[in-house]
């Protein structure tokens, strides 16, 4: 305990019931040191937590984007996800005109798209002798930035190796409009 000697002038005589503690004052500084270390830890952590995180995204080359629509890979490997308005999404496997699994509306999150993705991730290698699942993400005009980040997150969470960000096609947009999935 550190000793902080204080002036003992005028301490009461020991006769009274309340003894003044001015004489020989010793202050225990342990608590202050604890507090100081707590503050240090706080500042150390907040300066590094302040830096925002970055999520890497790759988009296909613009000139080659038309090629992507032709899908040179086998259709049973692909799942297309359309980001609609109101935090909903529509997914289908294969081509839009001839889907292997029909367009289905789901939500984001563990119960919605993640279940679908996990299932597809297992199915595709079984059906195609070990080939990987390919996911094509096509946001509509009513998808928010949060939707985009969420779906890219899902890619990371379920560990999809191959995915790309594409442009929504007119037929798909029409489909969303018909099913009232766009905000307007």
């Amino acid at each position, binding site marked *: *305990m*550190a*000793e902080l000697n204080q002036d003992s002038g005028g301490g009461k005589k020991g006769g009274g019931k309340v003894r003044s503690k001015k004489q020989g004052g010793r202050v*225990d*500084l*342990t608590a*202050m*040191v604890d507090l*100081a*270390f707590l*503050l*240090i830890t706080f*500042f*150390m952590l*907040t*300066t590094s937590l*302040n*830096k*925002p*995180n*970055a*999520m*890497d*995204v*790759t*988009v*296909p*080359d*613009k000139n080659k984007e038309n090629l*992507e629509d032709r899908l040179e890979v086998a259709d049973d490997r692909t799942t297309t996800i359309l*980001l609609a308005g109101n935090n909903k999404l529509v997914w289908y496997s294969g081509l839009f005109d001839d889907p292997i699994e029909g367009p289905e509306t789901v939500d984001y999150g563990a119960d919605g798209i993640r279940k679908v993705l996990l299932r597809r991730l297992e199915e595709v290698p079984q059906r195609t002798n070990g080939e990987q699942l390919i996911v094509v993400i096509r*946001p*509509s*005009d*009513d*998808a*928010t*930035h*949060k*939707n*985009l*980040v*969420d779906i*890219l*997150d899902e*890619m*990371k*969470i379920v*560990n*999809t*190796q*191959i*995915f*790309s*960000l594409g442009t929504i096609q007119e037929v798909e947009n029409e489909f969303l409009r018909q099913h009232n999935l766009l905000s307007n």
Partner: protein
Amino acid sequence: MARAKVKRASTVIDMTAMCDVSFLLLTFFVLTATARQPEALEVDTPASVTQVKIPDDKLGMVTVGDGGKLFFGVKGPQIRTRMLEIMSEKYNIQFSEEEVARFSLMEEFGVPMHNLKQLIAMDMEQRATRGLQPGIPNDTTNNLSNEMFHWIHSARTATAALYNEQMRISIKGDANEKYPDIKKVIDILQDQNLNRFSLITKLKGGIEGIEVEPDTE
């Protein structure tokens, strides 16, 4: 038998020194937490599981917020100076030495070229007024009107010239921005053959982050 009396050493430790050191450390951390400039455009980024931090330098950040307004910021005063010089040549606007120096201290801005001098003349408090800066224009009518494209291009040229490295671009979008506004920025990047960039997010709690390299196509 006289028992040797072992003198009990005092178990009291003087904590004054420890207290001094800890306050010194605290002062150090408080002062090195650099005060950041008030953001020109406040944006609430969406949450994600990624835990990769943004790089400290050679980073260009495009902020999309408030209904599709575009703001741009670059880390590093030398890059900003060089970028301004390149832009001043392209748009034929002369900046004085002092204006260039003041510009190199601005971390982020969002005004069209013809308002840039006014913005530089303001002080930091005034610049951060909500709704003051209208955003950088990005209409594709003619070559020079897509100023966002040219800012990014100049920033990349400046980085390559000064440091011989590629500048990385990241997009910080508000969670409620609609996709077409983000798509505009992605289009601008694609026009410059920049197909890899990052999205700025905050950390989502509750799910373990798994890091995966996206496939380059």
